[in-house]
């Protein structure tokens, strides 16, 4: 089995385990390739999407696909494109409610990771009124006599360390709405984004020094703790929090 095949297999198994541990039922993800093995597609097995149920009745369906290849070093699995689409109903069809996407090489100046909201608010409302009561927010929504609105929903965007920056929002507004801007806005925003992400990279290393050490050693570094210093711990909560 080639390096990419093995990594794609493990990736598909990890995704399957993740979904099963969250919602109990899920057929194993598929990992498909041609014989030359230079690309893999990892996606859910259910052709109409993974069913998401409330008290056993389908409410939503989830379609997940990752287009994979080897990274620039020809060593690690890299995702060229990923889509996670949420549809109303038991079978994915027409427009999703929303979709999370990532494109390694996007066409045009779009964010490499982004969310598209398709649904008219009524489609969201229709799903929300049928939401289950097994969570705090679901239960609160069920008790509320008013009409639920899209603005109540919280869409995750990267947690503590990988959240969008102000530069991201400004660039999006300029690109998508043609907001008045300076001639060199892109240079300024990219510089600010780089500063932000560099700071966050250092913060991420402080959160999870062991993963940082593993990555650096794989790159050829030899990492040593100064004598007399206690090895740092991992901030599990920062890594796990939604």
């Amino acid at each position, binding site marked *: 089995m080639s390096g990419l095949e093995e990594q794609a297999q493990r990736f598909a198994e990890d995704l*399957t*385990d993740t979904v099963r541990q969250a919602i109990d039922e899920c057929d194993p993800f598929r990992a498909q*390739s041609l014989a030359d093995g230079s690309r893999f597609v990892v996606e859910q097995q259910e052709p*109409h999407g993974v069913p998401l149920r409330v008290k056993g009745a389908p409410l939503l369906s989830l379609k997940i*696909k990752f287009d994979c290849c080897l990274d620039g070093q020809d060593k690690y699995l890299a995702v060229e494109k990923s889509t996670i689409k949420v549809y109303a109903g038991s079978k994915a069809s027409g427009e999703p409610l929303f979709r999370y996407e990532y494109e390694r090489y996007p066409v045009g100046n779009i964010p490499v990771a982004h969310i598209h909201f398709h649904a008219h608010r009524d489609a969201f409302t229709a799903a929300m009124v049928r939401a289950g009561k097994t969570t705090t927010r679901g239960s609160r929504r069920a008790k509320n006599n008013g009409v639920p609105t899209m603005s109540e929903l919280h869409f995750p965007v990267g947690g503590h360390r990988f959240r969008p920056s102000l530069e991201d929002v400004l660039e999006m507004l300029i690109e998508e709405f043609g907001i008045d801007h300076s001639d060199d806005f892109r240079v300024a925003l990219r510089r600010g984004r780089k500063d932000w992400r560099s700071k966050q990279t250092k913060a991420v290393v402080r959160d999870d020094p062991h993963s940082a050490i593993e990555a650096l050693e794989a790159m050829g570094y030899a990492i040593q703790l100064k004598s007399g210093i206690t090895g740092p711990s991992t901030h599990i909560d920062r890594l796990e929090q939604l």
Partner: protein
Amino acid sequence: MASVIPEIFSRQAAERRRHEILVQVGDAHRFRERGEAYELNADELVLYDELLTLDYLLGG
């Protein structure tokens, strides 16, 4: 821990399957346009997703 067995196809088999789908959907160009515009029903969407998978694997 789930167990996944990678599915490996020959290039010829993938091209054959892509051709089958394109014949089945009729006007391939229009089908792709409808797919990009999210106008497909559930069964059409299954074919469209399979077509995109084959496109990517075949480098098209």
